[in-house]
C-alpha cells in the first residue's frame, strides 16, 4: 500500500487537531488537540523515514514523544492552577488581559 496515504492521514489528523484548538473552549481539550497535532507529526516522520529508508524519522518521533510528555507536565500544571483559582477550565473565561 502506498505510504503516501499515511501522509494524507497525518495531514488530516493535523488539521483536525488545529481545528479543535480553534473551536474548543476547554483548555484540557485544546491541549489534547495540540497533542493530536504532535502525533500527526510523528506519523508523518515515521512515514517519511519509511519512504526514505533511513531511520532519522523514527528517532525524531521518539524525541517528539518525550517533548510532548514534558509539555504535558508543564501544561497540566498550569491549567490546573488556573482551574483552581477560577473554577473553570474554559479559556474564554480567561479574558482579563486584552486590548
Amino acid at each position, binding site marked *: 500500500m502506498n505510504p503516501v496515504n499515511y501522509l494524507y492521514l497525518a495531514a488530516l489528523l493535523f488539521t483536525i487537531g488545529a481545528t479543535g484548538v480553534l473551536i474548543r473552549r476547554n483548555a484540557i481539550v485544546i491541549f489534547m488537540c495540540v497533542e493530536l497535532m504532535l502525533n500527526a507529526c510523528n506519523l508523518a516522520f515515521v512515514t517519511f523515514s519509511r519512504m*526514505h529508508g533511513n531511520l532519522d524519522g523514527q528517532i525524531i518521533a521518539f524525541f*517528539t514523544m518525550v517533548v510532548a510528555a514534558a509539555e504535558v507536565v508543564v501544561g497540566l500544571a*498550569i491549567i490546573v492552577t488556573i482551574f483552581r*483559582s477560577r473554577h473553570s477550565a474554559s*479559556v474564554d473565561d480567561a479574558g482579563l*488581559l486584552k486590548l
Partner: protein
Amino acid sequence: MSHVETVHSLWTLAAAEAPKKIPGPHIEYVQLSPTLIVLGAALLGVLAEAFLPRGVRHRAQLGLAALGLAAAFAAVVALAAGGYASDKSHVAAMGAVAVDGPALFLQGTILLVALVAVFTFAERRLDPAADGRPVDSFAAQAAAVPGGDAEREAVAAGMVTTEVFPLVLFAVGGMLVFPAADDLLTLFVALEVFSLPLYILCGLARRQRLLSQESAVKYFLLGAFSSAFLLFGIALLYGYAGTVTYAGIADVVSGTTRVMDPALAGSTANDALLLVGVAMVLMGLLFKVGAVPFHMWTPDVYQGAPTPVTGFMAAATKVAAFGALLRLLYVVLPGMRWDWRPVMWGVAIVTMLVGAIVAVTQTDVKRLLAYSSIAHAGFILAGVIAATPDGVSSVLFYLAAYSFVTLGAFAVVTLVRDAGGEATHLSKWAGLGRRSPLVAAVFAVFLLAFAGIPLTSGFAGKFAVFKAAAQGGAAPLVIVGVLSSAIAAFFYIRVIVLMFFSEPKADGPTVAVPSPLTSSAIAIGVAVTLVLGLAPQYFLELAGQAGVFVR
C-alpha cells in the same frame, strides 16, 4: 512498485547479517561548554532546592545562577578568543550544534542579558516585607489559590519560589542551543527546552496572580500550538530532503545532491513539501520573535508575567529566536531566497506598521513596551531580509543593543509602585519627572533609544539594519521603516510628556528605592545604551567579524 522493493531489500538486509556496532557519538564537550555549564548549574540548582534549608536558598540560588552564567560567558569569550568565531568555527556534536561567529556572539549576548536579568529576579526590596521577611516579585507558593488560605499560610511560613533560578537557567540553556542548532531536531528540542520554563515563570507573579496565570495559559497554549506547526514543518522538510541537518537540506535545496529514493522523485520535483515545510517552520520562529500576525500573545503575556520575567523574555527570547531565524534563512535556504524574501517582506512591513500603530493607543506601560517590541521585531526583520553578511552583523548588533534597552526599561517599570504592586497604568506615571527626576530621566533615555534618537544605541542599531536593508535592495522597507519609526516616536514621546510636562497626581505612585541588584541592572542598561550610541565602532566590528555562518 519501487518502494516495495526498497522496503523488501531493507528487511532482507536486516535479516542477512547481524547489525554492525553503532559507533558512540563523538561530542566536543569543550566547544559546547557554555551550554553544559548553564545546564549543570541548573541541575545543581534543583538539588539545592531539594536539600538546602529554606533560609539560605535564595542567596545560594542567586550565587549559583550568577556564577554559572558568568562562567558560561567566560567560556564563550574563551572560545571566541580561541578562534572558533572565525577560522576554527565548525559543526560540533555530530552535526547537531554549530560553533561559529553568530552562535558565539548570540550566546554571549544571551548570557549577559540573563545575568543582568537574574539580578532583577533576585530583587527583594521593592515589595513591602511580608511579616518581617523581604519578598521578591514571585508568588510564595504558585500552586496555592490566589487569596486562599493556602497562600496566606505559605506567606506566613515565609515560602519563596526560589525555583525561578533553576528555571531561568534551563531556559537559558535552551536559548544557547537554539541559535546554534544545526539540525531541525535540535532546533525543536531547544525551542521546547527554553519555552517550557518560560511558560511556568509567567505564572509565578506575586501580585495580580490571576493575570499572571492567565498569561501563562495563553502563552502555553499558543506556544504549543505554534510548536506543533513548527514540528509539522520539520516533518515536511524531512520528507522533502530525507535529512534534518541544515547542510543536508541546503544541498538538496540547491540541488547539489539528489534524494536517492525515486519514490520521492515526484515530491522533490514539485516543491510543495519544501515550500509548505519552510512556511511552517518560519511560522514557528516568527511566533517566538512576535511578528505579525503571530504576535497576539505578546501584549497579554508581557503584561501578565512578572515584570522581571517579562524583561528577560523580551530581551533573551528575541535574541535566541532571531538567531535561529538567521541561521535557518542563511544556511538552509539561501538557495530559495527568491521564495522567502517576498514573504518576509510582507511580514516585516505589517509587523512594523501594526506594532507602531496599535501602540499609539495603549494605556499600560508593559503593554506599550510589548507593542514597541513587536515594531522592533519588524525593524530587525528588515535587516534579516537583506540577505547579506552586512545584514547578519547589523541584526546581531541590533539584538545586542535592543536587549539591554528592553531589560533596563522593564527594570525601571518594577520601581514605580503603589498599593497594588507595580503601577503600570500610564495615567499613574503623570508627573513622575517632577517627583523623582532621576528615574524619569533614565526611563526617558530608554524611550529615546527605543525611538532611535541619535546618540543612543537604538539609533546606531536602526541605522545599521536600515543600511543593510538598503544595500540589500530593500529600499521600500527602509521607507516603511522610517515612517513607522515616526509613528512609534509619537507614543514614546507621549510617555515623556506625561512624565515631565503634566502635573503629578496627589495619589500618584511612589518610586521604590531598589537594592544594588536592580540599580546595577538599570545602570548597565543605561551604560550600554549610551556606549553603543556614542562609540559603537568596536561592537559593530565584533558583529561584523561574527557575521559568517558555518555550514
